């Protein structure tokens, strides 16, 4: 700023900006201060040719617009006259710039000047107004602004002069201009979007047409603009879309004569709907382009979440479900959360979308052959199945009916006294009421209980269809792999991506499962659980095989299914016990989920009601052995289970005592077989739980105490209380992730005696020093040092000598006369 002012000295007085009466100009304190501080810069003021200025200012334009007009025409004339060799200095509109869309911009320099005075918005709005047709409100606003503007002119013109000075470097200037204009258009468009959006939000009915304009802007080539455009239109739609579905008037209705209000509303609605449609089409197109994928998906998801009742929701849903298994993490998460919220907020759309979404997902699972991201199935967990949808409504209806009856009776009594006219009026009223009710129902799409029930059944069947499809697919893929495992390679999401969420879902929705299917389900689970990698004994690593966690989950689901159906079915769960017995050995802490293991211990062992003694003993023994080899979390959950089992099985407590006589209860197998695969054949009753002895020496105090409590359990006494801790709880509490790493028992007693006064071995530590060698070394080092010193001394002396000589020479040189005199 200061620099530019100094330059003014050499420049003839420029044309003045549109005149403003002196009294209107207000100087801010800052301005005054600036001038005071920089009096040097302001010196030019004294030299201003007031006469020339007055001459120029004598013409008083009516409005600022007129002034602009005048200026522009003047300049045109001048440019025509003089050609291009000199750009006329114009303080108001410097250097018109042609933008990409062919519009002329004036006052582009404001961009730089506004940095100086910091009043950005107003100026930019002016820029818009110059190129756009002004509407009323804007014009009003503009009139206000003109005053402020005038004030700014003063500050602006130095900048403009700089521009003028730069004319020699035309090429550079052009470049700068281009850049400026690109930036400018970007800014302009951004601001326009904001403005239009604000208008729409403040008064949607009046400004509904600007929607089109906004959509136009979002067709820009600049990706940033497009994204901004999409998002701003989204914000607008989210706000202005009404809470009902728009039904466009039929032709018949259009022919009918309607009031102005209705016409206006119709126009509004149809415009809105058209714009919405266009917007959605655009989104669907853009969603397929990688650049816009995220933005478009975000828009789609937000719309589906916010206005699931509105028109075109089916299309929205389709495109959202299509992206549910997208490889893009962000997109996938967006879609999944949207679908989840659809499921959990059924009130917004009456449940219809739930059915559709589940159907669509089921179709996708089918078409992709179960190779989807697990998230896409996990969303099912958010569906809520209401058992007594019909019931409550029916009860309500009954109540109402009873009430109505009463009322009717009363009314009937009253009716007698009423006259005919009133009666007819009443009839008409009720007729109208019915009509209104019917209309309302038609509009609100609130389904009644029957419909909701139907939809729920449909949803359920789609969900279970998906689950069964996944189970069957997994089974076949395992079956295939034993024959030819190289044929198919696992997809991008792992070998059985959907199995885990599918099993989770089955466990959750077992209540809803039809009894007829349970038999099939159990068979599937049995096969899956027993698909061990060991039995195959294949040398190649088979990626298609199920992991331990997955197999444990299968067992778990089977138990949950049985339990939730109150063991109504007589299915033999023995196989699952065998599986668990063996899976305990295949468990690997890092690879497999310990939580699942703990849960299966809880569900399958702790909660099992009628236990076979032989089997229980086998599990007790194996779990105790298991506890010897694994980390504290696993050990603890195993020990908790052991304790639980022993508490409930008095006879199994024989394992705690070394019966000298040998197995009085040991049953058919006299000797314990630690490597047996079937718990019933292990003969565990013949053994003793010696593990507890080692476990009492465990470094973890909790495990150590647990082991001693177990070993202290009494055979004769029947302890009825059960420990409240579940294996899961134990696992979670003692896992390293939760570990606080603080010492468990703070009671420490350090015997603070100084350890071994090491006087005894001190002599040992003194190394043998050979005095002869030492003497020799010392002598050597002395000679070396002396040599160095001698060397140094000689050098120093030489230097001194040299210095002396130099000094002598210098003296001679300095005092030749003195010497001569001497």
């Amino acid at each position: 700023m200061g620099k530019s002012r100094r330059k003014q000295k050499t420049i003839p007085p420029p044309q003045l900006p549109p005149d403003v009466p002196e009294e209107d100009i207000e100087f801010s304190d800052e301005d005054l201060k600036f001038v005071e501080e920089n009096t040097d810069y302001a010196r030019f003021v004294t030299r201003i040719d007031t006469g020339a200025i007055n001459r120029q200012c004598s013409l008083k334009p009516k409005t600022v617009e007129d002034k602009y007009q005048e200026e522009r025409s003047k300049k045109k004339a001048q440019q025509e006259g003089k050609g291009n060799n000199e750009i006329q200095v114009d303080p108001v509109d410097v250097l018109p710039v042609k933008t990409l869309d062919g519009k002329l911009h004036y006052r582009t320099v404001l961009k730089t000047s506004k940095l100086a005075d910091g009043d950005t918005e107003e100026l930019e709005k002016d820029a818009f107004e110059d190129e756009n047709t002004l509407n009323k409100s804007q014009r009003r606003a503009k009139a206000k602004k003109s005053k402020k503007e005038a004030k700014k002119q003063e500050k602006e013109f130095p900048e403009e002069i700089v521009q003028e000075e730069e004319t020699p470097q035309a090429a550079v200037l052009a470049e700068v201009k281009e850049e400026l204009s690109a930036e400018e258009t970007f800014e302009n468009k951004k601001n326009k979007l904001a403005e239009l959006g604000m208008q729409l939000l403040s008064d949607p009915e009046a400004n509904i047409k600007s929607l089109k304009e906004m959509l136009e802007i979002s067709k820009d080539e600049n990706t940033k603009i497009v994204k901004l455009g999409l998002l701003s239109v989204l914000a607008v739609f989210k706000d202005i879309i009404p809470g009902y579905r728009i039904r466009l008037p039929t032709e018949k209705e259009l022919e009918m004569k309607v009031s102005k209000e209705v016409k206006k509303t119709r126009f509004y609605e149809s415009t809105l709907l058209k714009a919405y449609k266009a917007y959605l089409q655009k989104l669907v197109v853009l969603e397929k382009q990688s650049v816009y994928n995220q933005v478009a998906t975000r828009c789609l998801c937000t719309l589906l979440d916010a206005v699931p009742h509105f028109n075109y929701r089916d299309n929205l849903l389709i495109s959202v479900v299509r992206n549910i298994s997208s490889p893009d993490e962000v997109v996938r998460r967006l879609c999944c959360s949207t679908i989840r919220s659809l499921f959990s907020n059924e009130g917004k759309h009456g449940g219809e979308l739930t059915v559709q979404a589940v159907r669509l997902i089921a179709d996708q699972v089918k078409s992709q052959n179960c190779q989807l991201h697990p998230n896409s199935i996990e969303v099912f967990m958010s569906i809520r199945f209401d058992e007594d949808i019909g019931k409550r409504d029916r009860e309500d209806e009954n109540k109402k009916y009873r009430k109505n009856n009463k009322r009717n009776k009363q009314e009937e009594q009253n009716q007698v006294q009423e006259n005919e006219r009133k009666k007819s009026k009443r009839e008409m009223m009720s007729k109208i009421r019915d009509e209104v009710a019917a209309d309302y129902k038609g509009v609100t799409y609130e389904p009644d209980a029957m419909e909701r029930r139907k939809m729920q059944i449909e949803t359920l069947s789609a969900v279970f269809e998906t689950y069964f499809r996944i189970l069957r697919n997994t089974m076949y893929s395992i079956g295939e792999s034993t024959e030819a495992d190289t044929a198919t390679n696992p997809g991008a999401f792992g070998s059985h991506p959907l199995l885990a969420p599918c099993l989770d879902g089955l466990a959750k929705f077992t209540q809803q499962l039809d009894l007829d299917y349970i038999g099939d389900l159990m068979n599937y689970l049995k096969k899956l659980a027993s698909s061990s990698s060991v039995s195959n004994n294949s040398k190649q690593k088979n990626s298609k095989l199920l992991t331990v966690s997955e197999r444990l989950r299968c067992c778990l689901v089977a138990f949950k299914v049985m339990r939730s159906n109150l063991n109504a079915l007589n299915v033999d769960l023995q196989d699952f016990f065998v599986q668990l017995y063996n899976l305990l050995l295949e468990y690997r802490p890092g690879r497999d989920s310990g939580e699942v293991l703990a849960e299966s211990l809880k569900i399958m062992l702790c909660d099992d009601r009628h236990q076979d003694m032989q089997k229980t003993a086998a599990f007790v023994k194996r779990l105790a052995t298991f506890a010897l080899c694994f980390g504290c979390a696993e050990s603890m959950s195993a020990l908790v289970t052991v304790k639980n089992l022993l508490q409930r099985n008095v006879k199994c407590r024989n394992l705690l005592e070394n019966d000298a006589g040998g197995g009085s209860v040991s049953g058919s197998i006299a000797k314990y077989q630690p490597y047996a695969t079937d718990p019933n054949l292990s003969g565990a009753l013949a053994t003793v739980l010696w593990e507890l002895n080692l476990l009492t020496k465990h470094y973890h105090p909790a495990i150590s105490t647990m082991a001693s409590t177990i070993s202290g359990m009494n055979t004769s006494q029947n302890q009825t209380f059960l420990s409240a801790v579940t294996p899961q709880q134990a696992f979670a509490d003692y896992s390293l992730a939760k570990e606080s790493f603080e010492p468990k028992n703070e009671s420490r007693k350090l015997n603070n005696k100084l350890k071994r006064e090491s006087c005894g071995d001190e002599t040992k530590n003194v190394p043998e020093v050979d005095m002869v060698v030492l003497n020799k070394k010392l002598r050597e080092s002395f000679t070396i040092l002396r040599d160095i010193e001698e060397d140094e001394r000689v050098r120093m002396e030489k230097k001194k000598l040299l210095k002396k000589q130099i000094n002598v020479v210098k003296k001679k040189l300095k005092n030749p006369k003195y010497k001569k005199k001497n």
Partner: protein
Amino acid sequence: MQLVDEAESDIMKRKVLSGSVLSSCCDLVDEEHSVQALISLLNWYRAACHYGQEPSGITTPDIYYDIEDSETFAKVIVFVLQKADHIFRNILGLSASSNKEKILKLKNNPKWDSLKPLIKSFLRSTMHLVNHAADLEIIVFALTQLRVSIVFFAAFPDSLKKLIKLSVDLWVTGEGVLSQQAFLILKDISMVFNSECFDTCFINMYKAFLHDCDIPKADSDQLPFLRDSLVELCSQDMQKSYTKASVSIAQLAKLLKMALTTKNKEAVEKIQSGHYTNCVDLWVNFIAANIQDCDLQPLLYTIVQVINGVATLFIGPRYLLLRVKCIQWLNHISRTSGIFVPIASLVLDMLEYKTTNEGEKQEKKLEAVSAVKLPKNWLKSQNFQEQCIFSVIELLAVHFAQWSFHISFPELATIPVMRLKKFNERSTMEGLKRVVKRFIEQVELNIEFVQMKRDEAAFSPNDQQSTETFLQLEKRNKTAPYTQYYQSIIDKALGTKEKK
């Protein structure tokens, strides 16, 4: 100018020490404890120690000490270093085992005033010699002699600080004897000046120990030596080192917890740094050294949890060495404390490190790697797989050797044996199979033996006393074949390490 120069050098008395002067001086000091002779002797000593560094003798500008020949030079240094302490004590009337309180009381002694500057001069000159001498043996000799007079530093706290710094430097950078002597000095300091200097010594040494442990050292014995000496120092004052250890271990645990919960790269990298592992190593050794005498149970618990956490944080074949290290620590702690630390699952994981059997043979020494993480291409080599299996067997052998006569041994070995058998079924490498098979055979022998003895026992698991005494006799005579087998494996493992 010229004149002034010459005048100055004339003023400076040039005292040249000759052999005869020295020997008479020595006699005077030695026999009559003449303070006067001692003063001049120490002046000569000072000059000798500074010889070559201060040609003009700044401290005493009017006298310039010079030494005639190398013989006298050697003699004055050796004589003073050997006798000075004795003479000081004699003059002051101190016994050889006087502690620092006595030294501090000397202020009342009239002789102290005259001797104090002499002692200070001796100590400082010797420190200078240690600091500047070029030859290892001279330094070692000076250090050992200085150690005798450490008590005198009580009167000169500033010099003491310098000495600690000097010794720590020598301890870290020196080799063999020198490092050891420097450590002995530090140890004596922390013993003599227990309350004040233990902290300073410990902190300086600790910092120096951890300072450049990420840089692989040429001398691989250096780090264990430093660690051991630090442990020895810590063992001197259990009360103080206990708090230090618990703070440090808590810090380690905090870092680990952060890495476990956030899994962010920076935190995880901190765990695998040499800094972290060396620190764990230090405290493991500290606990192992002292667990028998003191109750370090809380520390032991935390460090075991930390090690378990480290082992589970880094899964996969590339972290083989770290995993092996962790299990070795656990075994070490378990062996010294007699506390049961389960390692089987950690060890057996290594059996399943996926390796391609037909990978090209790369004959590289795995032990030579300093980094915690192994380069990827190594994982394919057959050598790597062998290394895995050998480590498994070695670690299990240590574990089993500890509990081989425990009454629960058969159960302890059940799962590992099953897993090893399974490995043998799957593996295609005959050489490895044979090794594993032999191991299984020995362990099964052991199981059988314990089981047999157990069947004869008449007590129940809750009878702690009887189980403690079970098979203790057999444990003592180490003739059982499996005991010898375990020992041979352990020895072999140690042997390979030493060879390297």
